[in-house]
């Protein structure tokens, strides 16, 4: 049951490529409708993800596995916020909006802020000048860390222009090559998918 989906991929892919070159409003309207449908599919994919999340935590709760209480917290939060959001809406004045401001936002920010501690610890333990390449990386990182903050100018007036030069010359050169490499990879992968050469997204036969 793979031939039909392969045809769908081919038709949708070639249609979207063709629409890029057709400025007529009918073509652009068609693109808008197709993209709107894709957004609906994406929403159902999120629902699928939530079902998977639910199933994995529900199993732990029912089996009273280790940590089942925390799984129950996840299930209650998932169900409660979804139900409230569907019924009342999600703007700032709703209960979900207030839950977002007091729970989601601070938790997300704080989880990410932990990285500051771990990056310092990891830099101390693992950042070693073992060879030429590692030394280059280390020296550049140190120059960047000092040069891009206010104190850099006090340490040495040459730090800011040096950091700008590092960004504008070697960084630019390498990132340009990476960007082109990524672009070539993306185009070749996309073409392989459209032409049915790469079928990995369909899963096992």
């Amino acid at each position, binding site marked *: 049951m793979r031939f039909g989906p392969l045809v769908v991929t081919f038709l949708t892919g070639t249609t979207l490529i063709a629409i890029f070159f057709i400025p007529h409003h009918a073509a652009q309207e068609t693109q808008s409708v197709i993209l709107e449908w894709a957004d609906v599919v994406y929403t159902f994919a999120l629902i699928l993800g939530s079902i998977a999340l639910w199933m994995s935590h529900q199993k732990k709760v029912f089996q009273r596995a280790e940590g089942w209480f925390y799984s129950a917290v996840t299930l209650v939060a998932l169900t409660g916020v979804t139900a409230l959001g569907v019924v009342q809406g999600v703007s700032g004045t709703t209960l979900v909006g207030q839950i977002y401001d007091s729970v989601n936002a601070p938790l997300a920010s*704080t989880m990410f802020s932990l990285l500051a501690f771990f990056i310092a610890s990891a830099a101390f333990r693992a950042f070693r000048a073992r060879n030429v390449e590692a030394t280059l990386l280390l020296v550049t990182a140190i120059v960047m860390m000092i040069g891009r903050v206010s104190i850099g100018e006090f340490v040495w007036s040459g730090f800011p222009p040096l950091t700008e030069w590092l960004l504008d010359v070697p960084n630019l050169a390498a990132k340009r090559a990476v960007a082109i490499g990524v672009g070539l990879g993306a185009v070749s992968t996309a073409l392989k998918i459209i032409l049915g050469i790469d079928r990995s997204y369909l899963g096992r036969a």
Partner: protein
Amino acid sequence: MSHDVGTWIAAILTLCVFSFLYRDNPLYRFAEHLFVGASAGYLLAVQYQNVLRPNVIEKLQRGQFLAIIPLVLGILILGRAWERTSGIARWSLAFYVGIYSGIAVPSYLQAQIFAQVADALKPFAPGWGAVSSALVLLGFLSVLAYFFFSAPHKGVHGIAARLGIWFLMVAFGASFGYTVMARVSLLIARMQFLMRDWIGILPGA
């Protein structure tokens, strides 16, 4: 000190997450699981309000029955949740993957490949800027040489690839320096929240 209930909840949850820095503990695990459930629930609610309701439910209510197509595609993707029905999800996946593969081909070619190659081939800057321009071109070609794995990195190709690695190391060093800056910024913001918005000891509280 703040009298706002929401601020207190946010502060307590922030401290629960920071407690992980000492060691893993029930408070952190509670906050972590709450975050997972509340985030997933919020995302679902937002997608329902912004996608499903206007693009499917309200359209069907208005008699625009073309909206059945994305609804059916969405329901098909839910088949992925169970082993026996996972095959039917291929139609939705094919539709979604085909669309974004089609969009990727011309846009990557135009913006990431042609534009960057054109900029790489422009004349050198005048005066001493020519040195930097030459270095950018040299770095760009040498990094491309490194990423060409179809031929062994020997001889001239090997020398170019080695030079490319050095340019990459400088670029990664710059990225690392910026990454440290990014992570520290997140920590600064959480500290500002705790000390200014919650406890009120910062200037400007």
